[in-house]
């Protein structure tokens, strides 16, 4: 998938070992029907070669605001890809300020044009949509722009936009329909006047002054890039930010955002949204600490209050596919099988699965190989690294400090940490108070690393290699025995030597 999200020249490389030894599947139309053409579904259907007949169904229900998009799912259209590109644009907002310190004389004021940026972003997304189509064709995977639902454990019903029905039978069915952002339907005006991240990346006009409700990574990333391109942005947080992530790191991320210009309404819950005659949206909220009620007006209200699995149209209940009552996600075994034979699911729709593109891709490929009898390898969902592309990026792998304490006991973990200053911040006179590294290790024995956390520029690029070291079972001494690369931010990770237990100042000085 990653490969897919790059330049167009990559498509050419994919017509590899397709041997047309297709033995027809006898009583079924297909060996494999995949419902959902997102990261996981595409990876699964493309991997399912080995002489198999495969179809993938993809259909995008427009959002409440009418936004729709092409093949590729959340990541390509309304997630990772447009998000990272706009994040990059926002980093330029900071880079412009830095550039002045680096001797560049730039005439003020510098304006950002939303339409120019979005044209570039959307063109790229469309090229990826097209790339996926071409790849499916190359791999002889039948692409059907149908909305799929289950009839029985071997039968899928496809519905076209025009309402035409097609019945497909398959030996195996994989459900990879992902998830969509939720609306808080109990808040008056929320649905009518608010948007979600599904709309954000296809807005023709700048969202203007924006209220982002929620404090998940989606909320913080959106608020971060809106601030970065110069928009007045407020994040409304009910309880804590980045739930599930290390909370010290989460604090650094939001602290940085506050100094960066993002406003935060902590411990507040929205009550209603009204559209004024001027067109502005008036939001009323309650401060849960004081009980007081407040109001302000915004051009846009973005709900980032969580994502819901896209199960409603699938007819899962009829077949008895077991769902988690609380989350509505499909309950899966380690081999991605559901409670119904021949029906599998993976990606964001799977209960307990990380909502991340690379895990869906990998799980999809492995499932395809297993279904084709090519391998018995299961997906390993441990050691999944991730990066939050907030203005100050945060990358991590393994356990948070809290989780490590919970599992191993506070006295049995050693936390090495460092506050470091990226060299690029020095001349730019930027505050580096939130640039921090934390390596959570077992305290005794060989000090195996339990979790690794990094805030700073290029966190995603920094973290990947360390995630691999982590995967290989790295210990603290593996880090300290590795020679640093000077001067980089990543070298600070192998240089950490102050423990939290010592109580010493963890600020890095000198080279």
């Amino acid at each position: 998938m990653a490969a897919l999200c790059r330049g167009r020249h990559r498509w050419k490389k994919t017509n590899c070992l397709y041997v047309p030894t297709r033995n027809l599947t006898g009583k079924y139309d297909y060996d494999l029907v995949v419902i959902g053409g997102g990261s996981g579904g595409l990876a699964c259907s493309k991997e399912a070669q080995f002489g198999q007949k495969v179809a993938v169904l993809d259909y995008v229900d427009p959002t409440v605001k009418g936004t729709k998009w092409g093949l590729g799912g959340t990541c390509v259209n309304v997630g990772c890809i447009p998000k990272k590109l706009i994040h990059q644009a926002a980093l330029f907002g900071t880079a412009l300020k830095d550039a002045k310190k680096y001797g560049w004389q730039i005439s003020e004021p510098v304006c950002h044009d939303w339409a120019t940026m979005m044209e570039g972003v959307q063109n790229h997304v469309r090229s990826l949509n097209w790339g996926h189509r071409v790849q499916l064709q190359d791999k002889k995977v039948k692409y059907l722009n149908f909305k799929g639902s289950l009839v029985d454990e071997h039968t899928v019903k496809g519905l076209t936009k025009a309402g035409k029905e097609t019945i497909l039978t398959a030996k195996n069915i994989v459900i990879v329909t992902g998830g969509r952002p939720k609306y808080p339907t109990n808040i008056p005006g929320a649905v009518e006047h608010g948007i979600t991240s599904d709309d954000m990346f296809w807005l023709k006009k700048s969202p203007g002054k924006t209220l982002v409700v929620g404090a998940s990574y989606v909320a913080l990333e959106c608020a971060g890039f809106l601030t970065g391109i110069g928009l007045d942005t407020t994040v409304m947080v009910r309880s804590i930010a980045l739930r599930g992530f290390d909370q010290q790191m989460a604090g650094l991320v939001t602290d940085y955002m506050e100094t960066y210009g993002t406003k935060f309404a902590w411990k507040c819950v929205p009550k209603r949204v009204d559209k004024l005659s001027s067109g502005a949206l008036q939001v009323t909220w309650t401060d849960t600490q004081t009980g007081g009620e407040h109001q302000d007006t915004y051009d846009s209200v973005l709900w980032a209050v969580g994502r819901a699995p896209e199960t409603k149209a699938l007819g899962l209940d009829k077949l008895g596919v077991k769902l988690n009552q609380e989350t509505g996600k499909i309950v899966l075994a380690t081999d991605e099988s559901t409670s119904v034979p021949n029906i599998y699911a993976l990606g964001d729709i799977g209960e307990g699965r990380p909502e991340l593109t690379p895990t869906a891709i990998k799980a999809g490929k492995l499932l395809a190989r297993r279904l084709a009898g090519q391998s018995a390898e299961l997906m390993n969902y441990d050691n999944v690294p991730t990066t939050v592309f907030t203005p100050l990026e945060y990358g991590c792998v393994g356990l948070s400090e809290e989780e490590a304490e919970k599992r191993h006991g506070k006295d049995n973990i050693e936390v090495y940490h460092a506050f470091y200053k990226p060299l690029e911040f020095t001349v730019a006179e930027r505050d580096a108070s939130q640039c921090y590294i934390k390596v959570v290790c077992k305290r005794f024995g060989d000090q195996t690393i339990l979790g690794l956390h990094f805030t700073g520029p290029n966190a995603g690029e920094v973290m990947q290699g360390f995630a691999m070291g982590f995967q290989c079972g790295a210990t603290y001494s593996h880090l300290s025995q590795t020679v640093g690369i000077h001067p980089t931010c990543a070298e600070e990770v192998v240089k950490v030597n102050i423990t939290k237990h010592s109580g010493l100042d963890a600020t890095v000085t000198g080279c």
Partner: protein
Amino acid sequence: TQHNTRGLPQGRQPENRKHAVIGFLLTLPFPVRPTHTPTSFLVMAVFTQHGSIRRNMASDRAASQATRFDFLVIGGGSGGLAGARRASELGAATAVIESHKLGGTCVNVGCVPKKVMWNAAVHAEYLHDHSDYGFDTGNVRFSWETLKAKRDAYVSHLNRIYRNNLDKAKIQTIQGHARFTNDPEPTVEVDGRKYTAPHILIATGGLPSVLSDAEIPGANLGITSDGFFELETLPKRTVIVGAGYIAVEMAGILSTLGSKTSLIIRQTGVLRNFDSLISANCTKELQNTGIDLWKNSQVKSVCKSEKGLEVTIVTKDPEKKNDEEKTSTIQEVDCLLWAIGRQPNISGLNIGGVDTDERGHIIVDEFQNTSRPGIYAVGDVCGKALLTPVAIAAGRKLAHRLFEGKKDSKLDYSCIPTVVFSHPPIGTVGLTEEEAIKSRGKENVKIYKTSFTPMYHAITSRKSQCIMKLVCVGKEEKVVGLHMQGLGCDEMLQGFSVAIKMGATKADFDKTIAIHPTSSEEFVTMR
């Protein structure tokens, strides 16, 4: 990322003599720390503003002339300072002799100011891309003067930090040039005073190589990387000679910041000791970014005219035997920069009793021992892996061996990651494909490669590729080399180098979950 120190005469006087004065005022007795050597004397410590020193009060006349320490370090650069501080932490009475500014090459004329310049150049590249990302920046001008002032201020700040660190560690700083005496016990002399210690570390680093006017007429009209950091204005027209990483970095910085830059190389590619993929790609990228590359060329002479330097170059393609040698001249050059290599900084040190190689590098064993007992060397002066973190690590390991009794403490010189701050940057660790084939045989080497346009460039009109290569050996496909050039490669390498040092195989790469969307994820999704 080179490192050296300046423990030796360079014709420059220290600008700040304030700290150079060693006070001998006997103020209060200082508790004597345990000595770790058999040659212990009854000592009396004196306490000065900048740390403690011990004076030998024994009756031996010859020795009494010398101030005695446990550990004497010649050269206050990366390796020397790291070794000195670690030794001091371990209880050794330590002194550092430095003739110039603290911090050595890295801080003053290497890694740090170089990367500041590279960062400035990266901004220049960003400015090209701003409009694609929606920012209208209009007219932009660059002020080298502003940048240089900031850079100098930052370097001075680091010099002060190093000074404070030494003071805090109670390490004596001796300002001046060190010269070994002919005393039977290893002893050095600085400004007429003698100093000795059972353990003396040479960490004097290196210097840019220069050519004499006899070798190339007018050669001394040019500068080196040291001079680059003294330039007060952005040269309009630059000629850089050399194909190593310093030449590549300097050419990239100057060209990107707006100097019309020519790079003169003797053969057909730069970075010829890197993996061939990197060498070829970097050569291509230099040309793509507008550097005027002269292959198969050498400078024949340089002369000065009213409008600047005239650099005369001869070009001859060895493949085309029948072609005539071509002579050309680049006119109006205001910066000629020699980046033809570095040499050990040992002149004036009088290290007669210590073996050196034919180029003057001090020969050390794996424990940094020189041929003379009690004398050690780390860093660029040894000519191996000229990198700051290598010198630092070697200096610290040595301190642990000498003052903590850790007999096996030594630096493992395998799998040292390095980054070249070219445009885009290069990252490399381990063996090149060519080295792997040579040592393991072609049949045992498997290569994985990829190239792509980083997502950053998805919406920019300026493009650059990212290339990646894994060199694997044996049935288990152990990864012995990783090479890459592209946006972000500078920050990508460190983590992978941990895994490779741990002995990672291709299967370990495959097992690792990607971080999306990044460029580095391509390493774990490679087929």
